[in-house]
């Protein structure tokens, strides 16, 4: 059943301070039951703002967000019953132990003492935290704290879980553990919306994803579809010593059938091509006259899709 869990319509947000900052310029998204949806974009693209509005912690300038048909602006208290949030930073209650963080979260959502206790113990086992149940959040590593946050966010069995940059600041090992924890949620039927600026994360975790930049959705679809339809290309970044005659060289390269675009950059030349067969030797030869210093090849990936869409690197 393709039930819509999250519906975001024409969402805009302008932060009014000394100078107004437009964070969102009309976002439209729909999340289906049980899918893991990725929101991919560089810092400042509007990912966190979108999540903040959807989780009732910020008010939109215009547009609506509905969770299972409930408008989050009109009925925030009701909507909060349906959502779980893992914020970007560690917001665990420092005055409570790991167990108590889970236990009281359950109590906030109306669980009885016995029910809250059994649910907390169950989560501690599920997330392999039983040994740390009496630790305080200050004593946990970043990875462990993140796992407690995920456990806490799903404790009241929300319909949809929001994860804001879940792997920011985690070491590779903790990141893998976090990924498998999120994968594990699939079996519980929870719909997940996660934001990230890591390509690999978006690629391997999400069923569908939206690439956003400057508060707008640039592309939407499964990672495979995005790579295929946007013709994820290979990108050649050439660093050259001399800038003379580069325009002519770029124009000549553009005439080739396998080259999608060729542009002069401050360092040299950026060539985007559908396939790299046969192009590489020609490129090296052509660039030799301009003093080739370095050549960087980026294989087709979401990263190249993003560069093609925005002309910028994701981590710029």
């Amino acid at each position, binding site marked *: 059943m393709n039930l819509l869990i999250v519906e975001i319509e024409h969402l805009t947000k302008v*932060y009014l301070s000394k100078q107004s900052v437009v964070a969102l310029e009309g976002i439209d998204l729909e999340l289906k039951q049980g899918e893991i949806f990725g929101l991919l974009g560089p810092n400042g693209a509007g990912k966190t703002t979108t999540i*903040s509005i959807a*989780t*009732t*912690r*910020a*008010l939109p300038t215009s547009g609506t967000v509905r969770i299972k048909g409930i408008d989050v602006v009109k009925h*925030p*208290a*009701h909507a*909060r*019953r349906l*959502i779980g*949030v893992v*914020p970007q*930073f*560690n*917001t*665990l*209650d*420092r*005055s*409570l132990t790991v167990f*108590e*963080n889970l236990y*009281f*979260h359950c*109590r*906030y*959502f*109306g669980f009885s003492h016995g029910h809250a206790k059994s649910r907390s113990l169950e989560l501690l086992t599920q997330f392999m935290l039983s040994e740390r149940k009496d630790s305080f959040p200050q004593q946990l590593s970043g990875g462990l704290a993140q796992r407690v946050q995920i456990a*806490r966010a799903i404790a009241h069995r929300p319909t949809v879980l929001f994860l804001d940059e879940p792997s920011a600041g985690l070491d590779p090992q903790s990141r893998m553990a976090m990924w498998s924890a999120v994968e594990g949620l699939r079996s519980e039927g929870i719909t997940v919306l996660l934001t990230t600026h890591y390509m690999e994360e978006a690629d391997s975790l999400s069923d569908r994803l939206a690439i956003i930049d400057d508060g707008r959705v640039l592309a939407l679809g499964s990672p495979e579809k995005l790579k295929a339809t946007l013709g994820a290309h290979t990108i050649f970044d050439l660093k050259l010593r001399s800038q003379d005659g580069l325009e002519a060289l770029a124009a000549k390269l553009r005439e080739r059938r396998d080259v999608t675009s060729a542009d002069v950059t401050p360092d040299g030349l950026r060539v985007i091509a559908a396939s790299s067969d046969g192009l590489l030797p020609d490129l090296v030869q052509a660039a030799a006259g301009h003093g080739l210093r370095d050549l960087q090849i980026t294989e087709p990936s979401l990263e190249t899709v993003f560069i093609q869409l925005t002309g910028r690197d994701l981590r710029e």
Partner: protein
Amino acid sequence: MNNLRLKIGKFLKEILRMFLQDAEALTRYADHRISGNPASIALEAGIFFKAFGGLFLRDLRVLTREFLPFILRVGMQPLLFLFVFTFILPRMGNGNPMTVGGTGVDFGTILLPGLMAVAIMFSGIAGVALPLSNEFGITREIDDRVMCPVPLWAVALEKVCFSAMQSMIAALLVIPMARYIPAVPVRADVHHWFLFALVLVLASLLAGSLGLVIGSIVNPKQIGLVFSIIVVPITFLGCVYYPWSWLDKIRWLKYGVLFNPIVYISEGLRAAVTPSIEHMPWWAILAALFFFTAALGRWGLKGFLGRVLS
């Protein structure tokens, strides 16, 4: 003078407008609830009280973990005050230096309600302002509670109620201290239990509301400064160490302090605990306590919402 009158008029009008807005919002809220079916209203009310209870239990758990420091924090000041002014000093002087204002009234009796007022004030602020300013700080610990399935005002209300409970404990602690520490025991003389309970509850809610204002408006880094430039002055000038009526000779101060909510806490407790000492009429005290609780609560809530909603 006219200018000042205009300003005060404008201020009062602004407050009235705020309350009218609230009343309207509340009726709209109620309308919306009533139009739903009874079963779903009962369900929502159930969720509300359970969540509110959960928040309260959380605070209670944290308090029990720090119960001894809590008792020390609220008890130390009145303990030392009573010890120095009603135990040490009376033994030093010749005659009786601690009869103030030449009325022959024992200073301890004047001090008892005043110290209760100070205890209420300080624990109200320590119970809301300090934890809130921490939780709003870098850690944003408040986030999980803000995500409770209750309206945001309920989260703020819970903070105020919990601190009111702490304030009441702190105030009641002063009574046995005043009985056993001073050279001449001071006895609480409560004739009207209802008035006493009402004043105690209202005063505690007022202190919590003031804590909410400070905690949600003041930058965490400046919380210490706020203590020295706001909390300490309003406490010292809050008719804590003398009844308000004794200010007759300093008329500008007598009317100036009417803007200080602590005055009504001290006077209210004076009316309830030591009625033999001159005090303001009870109706004026209750009206002022109501007014300041509502105004500060409203202001604090506005600040709270501003902090959690962007």
